């Protein structure tokens, strides 16, 4: 099989699908190479991400990583959430085919971009370096 069982499970039954009413942060990222687009919404209470949702136009891996990252982020505080790497997302899905690693990068970027948005709105933007990603793809 192209994808791990875990990927297929998240693809089949993606968690946290859909838009969010009044999100505290919105991340919108797109991969110019493959055309995948992710939108990620977070709700933050007392510095903790209490809910996350997404909408994704993309392949199986893009949908599964979106689903996984929204699961991983829930209940984490902002600092912890910022430490979620694309590798961690891929590992949580029991790996991705090399050609699909970029989807996990996209998921990480969507999350970071949503947090950035939240921090901006709440007046605490991060520096550029802290948002760099680790691409194995």
């Amino acid at each position, binding site marked *: 099989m192209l994808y791990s069982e875990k990927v297929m499970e998240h693809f089949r039954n993606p968690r946290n*699908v*859909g838009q969010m009413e009044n999100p505290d942060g919105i991340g919108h990222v797109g991969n110019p190479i493959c055309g995948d687009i992710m939108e990620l919404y977070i709700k933050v209470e007392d510095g903790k991400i209490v809910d996350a949702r997404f909408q994704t136009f993309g392949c199986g891996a893009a949908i599964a990583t979106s689903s996984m990252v929204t699961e991983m982020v829930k209940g984490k505080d902002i600092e912890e959430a910022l430490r979620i790497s694309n590798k961690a997302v891929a590992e949580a899905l029991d790996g991705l085919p090399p050609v699909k690693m970029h989807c996990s990068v996209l998921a990480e970027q969507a999350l970071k971009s949503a947090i950035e948005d939240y921090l901006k709105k709440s007046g605490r933007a991060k520096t550029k370096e802290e948002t760099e990603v680790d691409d194995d793809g």
Partner: protein
Amino acid sequence: MRRVYLDNNATTPVHPLVLEAMIPFFKETFGNASSVHYFGQQAKKALEESREKVAAFIGAKAGEIVFTSGGTESDNLAIKGVAYANRAKGRHIITSSIEHHAVLNVCKQLEKKGFEVTYLPVNRYGEVSPESVEDAIRPDTILITVMHANNEVGTLQPIDAIGKIAKARQILFHTDAVQSVGKVPVNVDSFNVDLLSLSSHKIYGPKGVGALYVRRGTRILPLFQGGHHERRRRAGTENVPGVVGLGRACELAAENMDEEAGKLLALMDRLQSGLERKVEDVLLNGHPTKRLPNTLNMSFAGVEGESLLLNLDMEGIAVSTGSACTSGTLEPSHVLSAMGVDPQLAQGSLRFSLGRENTEEDIDYVLAVISDIVKRLRAISPFYKSSSSPS
């Protein structure tokens, strides 16, 4: 689980009669066709009979058929073979922008070796205009290579018109007919082609064998050095069972093509009109009529192709996004891009390619499951907000 195979442009199951024809050549008539003794000569006889059959099917003479390992090798042999044999005459090649990678990537490779290549544009239906071919010809043009039918969208090229131009200007003309052979009539003389590629596994023959037609008197340089097989145009012990399979597949295609094409066309129309009725915002890619009778490429607005493909696969339905060879790569279809299809719609395209084993029930099954899948994916999609066009 019910399984519906709608990816016949990627490959086809071997026809039972083809397999039956091949079987004796594995264990019994197993000789090396180059051997002088009985075992060798029996194999040779089968090889040459198959050559006759393949030749007859495309209106060629047996001596003009070179057996290869498949469509990719045929394309490589044709284009490199002609390019290197005619290097002294000129270094310009004309092709289209929607060729299979077995042609496009050969052309790109030749560019690195000092050849110049013109990649002709296509219209929104994927057609090359004969005028654009005429206009692209230069004094140093040594080869025109334009595919007969496109593998992704099925569009048929005005091959007769291009062939006439090539002939009038005395330029060698190759066509990749891998997708058209067996589906629509192919004749090397009426096309005025000098070289034509075909592949066995696309026409219910075995994988690992193909053929290149080389018009008598056309010089090509071989890709392989070795023994003196195939009149020194292709070294290597001949794949006798494979070639026998290809010969039989051609024979069967000749017998059944007309009837088969009618059946496929009816099924394809049923699929297309069903999709248009049941699913909102679907668009046809490819020519509405000048198209292979089995190939339907549709874009589903707001949905990405692979996720649609995987969902259909979970229901037992096998389709493709573009060509099988480029799955696993990131690039969107170069064919749809060249046709000017909106990038997001190109990402949301599926190819249904029908075959002789498909039935009306298969089509109805697809129609029964696809609209829910599309709805579900559109619900996840950030683009598809309403029932109208994409964002």
